[in-house]
């Protein structure tokens, strides 16, 4: 694997959009060509080299390309957008849409990420070693097809709209969430190891949600069924098993209605 190391040496006045900073875009390009890749600040377009020092070499394919981002990327959006393979490591906080619409490959953020992280993620691994804001692994506005695959891990806390319209894949939150986990979910798995204030599994059609901490306000539409032992992210524990949302439509399979499962650790 070849590595391109980019150090941000200049901060934007506003915010930068860097949707072309991906292994797919860098693969097969020389350092000069990578430096010419377009980023934008509002309506003004710049070459990447005007904001960053670029070293190393790209691989021939996305899969063989690793990108390391040093410096402060707090005000940069859309890194890793739609990538299919390869790796990106971001050694600072990062702004919105990190790993947006990603299909494969691996992104690691050693810092906090802003909102819309992993939007409509379809595959790969996205890890935030820090907190995230809102709309984590959620769908774009209006699209009933949200996250469909991959593993999105946030070690810290998250805000609202975790896995909205989720259809597949796994989201793991190490800390707390605010409200709206798996809203309109129709598949996939969400694990919250901390606490959630409320609205877990609201309007959820099917899928699995695990909460290791507490839920302040349970949805009325969730009904206790039984206690079960489950292994969650490698740890076995006993969970109170609820099914719901009883206020939502649910598919039937072989004559049996399929609900969303909510597991609350005992």
């Amino acid at each position, binding site marked *: 694997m070849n590595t391109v190391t980019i150090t941000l040496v200049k901060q934007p006045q506003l915010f930068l959009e860097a949707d072309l900073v991906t292994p797919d875009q860098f693969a097969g390009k020389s350092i000069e060509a990578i430096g010419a890749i377009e980023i*934008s*600040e509002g309506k*003004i377009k710049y070459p990447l080299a005007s904001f960053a020092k670029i070293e190393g070499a790209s691989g021939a394919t996305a899969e063989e390309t690793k990108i390391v981002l040093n410096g402060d990327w707090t005000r940069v959006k859309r890194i890793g957008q739609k990538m299919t393979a390869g790796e990106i490591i971001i050694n600072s906080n990062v702004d919105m849409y990190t790993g947006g619409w990603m299909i494969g490959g691996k992104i690691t953020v050693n810092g906090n990420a802003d909102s819309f992280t992993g939007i409509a993620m379809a595959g790969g691994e996205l890890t935030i070693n820090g907190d995230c804001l809102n709309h984590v692994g959620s769908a774009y506005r209006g699209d009933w097809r949200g996250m469909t695959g991959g593993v999105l891990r946030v070690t810290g806390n998250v805000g609202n709209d975790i896995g909205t319209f989720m259809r597949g894949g796994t989201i793991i939150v190490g800390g707390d969430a605010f409200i709206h986990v798996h809203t309109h979910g129709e598949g996939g798995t969400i694990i919250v190891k901390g606490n959630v204030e409320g609205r877990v599994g609201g309007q959820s059609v099917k899928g699995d949600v695990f909460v290791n901490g507490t839920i302040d306000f349970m949805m009325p539409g969730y009904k206790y069924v039984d206690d079960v032992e489950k292994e969650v992210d490698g740890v076995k524990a006993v969970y109170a098993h609820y099914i719901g949302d009883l*206020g939502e439509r649910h598919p039937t399979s072989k004559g049996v209605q399929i609900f969303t499962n909510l597991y609350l650790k005992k």
Partner: protein
Amino acid sequence: MQEVIKHVACPYCGSCCDDLEITVDDGKIIEVKNACIIGTEIYHHASREGRVGSPRRRQPDGTYKDITYDEAIDFTAKMLIKAKKPLIFGFGSTNCEGMAAAGRVAEDAGAVLDNCASICHGSSFLAIFDTGYPSCTLGEVKNRADVVVYWGSNPAHAHPRHMSRYGVFPRGFFTGKGARGRKVIVVDPRYTDTARCADHFLQVQQGHDYDLFDAFRMVMHGHGADLPAVVAGIPKEKILEVCDVIKAGRYVHIFFGMGLCHSDGRNHNVDIAINLVRDINEVTKCTIMAMRGHYNIAGPGVVWAWQFGFPYCIDLTKGSIAHMNPGETSSVDLANRGEIDAFINIGTDAGAHFPIRAFEKIGGSVPMVTIDPSVNMAATVSDVHIPVAIVGVETGGICYRMDNVPIQYRSVIKPFNGILTDEQLFDKIYERMQELKNAGVESDGKWEYATPLADVRPVKEVYE
């Protein structure tokens, strides 16, 4: 010589009452008939002393001096070209012709184009994007509805003639008994004046409407037996009772407002309300409607949807395509994050209605133009203030009522002091932008003319 102008549509709230009668004498408004107290005031204040008759520019010492429209237009056009990410926000009180003209300017400038829904029924838009909008025109409620719900909405104060024209009292074609043939349900954390008309009042625990909707939906899906004893402060028995009223209705209609849009969960509250409507349609006819606050705040949503495909929060800075994502491209978020470098506040008052922290970020440091007939709060910190004609009073045009019915507005007097309409102003701004671009003015984000406010004290200093 006195003249009575009839069939005038009122430029206050989303009810768009179009039965006003305005008496005009020698270019001054003398009397207003049929309007509520607020609509009446809009007409009278147009003819009072103190109208702003000319654009004004803030001087280095903080006072304002009159300038010409040409100077104001030049400032605005230059600002729009030079800024990297200018924001044009407002349109709560403009006609559609003005909104269409602004759309052309925003596209040419590469600006973010947003309207007051962003701080109001934007939550409803997000819900509509995700789940649709089974709605109707107000006449369907008047003529058919026998069960009417006002949820998180207080028309007695915000839409004074709404209940008499549409929701509760009118005798429509199939509703000849008027209020006596209707059941009214009000859901609100407070016992409002609207609740005083209710047959059933549910004092929902604030911030928990979502849970209450879930409970209603459980009943509609046949799981009423699984209801907890109390949901969101409402006892199970009451929930079941109200569901029975709804199911027995011939036509159920739900009006909703800020109670859903701006309590926790926002768009999700509206979303689940809409899904309840879907559920009710399995049993009986049901529709829902957002109580749009202003007489043409539906306008920019409708106009920009046909021009750009999106109703608000439209980022046109990319130049190639339009991009919308509230949370990123919404005005308050752009302001809070420091993501804009120029601001036009039009037909609204960001100074009064933005969260103070958001306005602080832009008020002191970002060049600002306010386009509004009055000196509102935003105008007191703007670099330039441009007055425009009051729609519905001094200029006509098309406005979209809360149910998206286009209402043709009329003018009853000429614009004060010959001030321009929004449409004329934006068209002139567009022309000036072409002239400046041809003369070599570029988008470089460099300001020579923004004058920072010396005496703006951050709110922190005052209150903390």
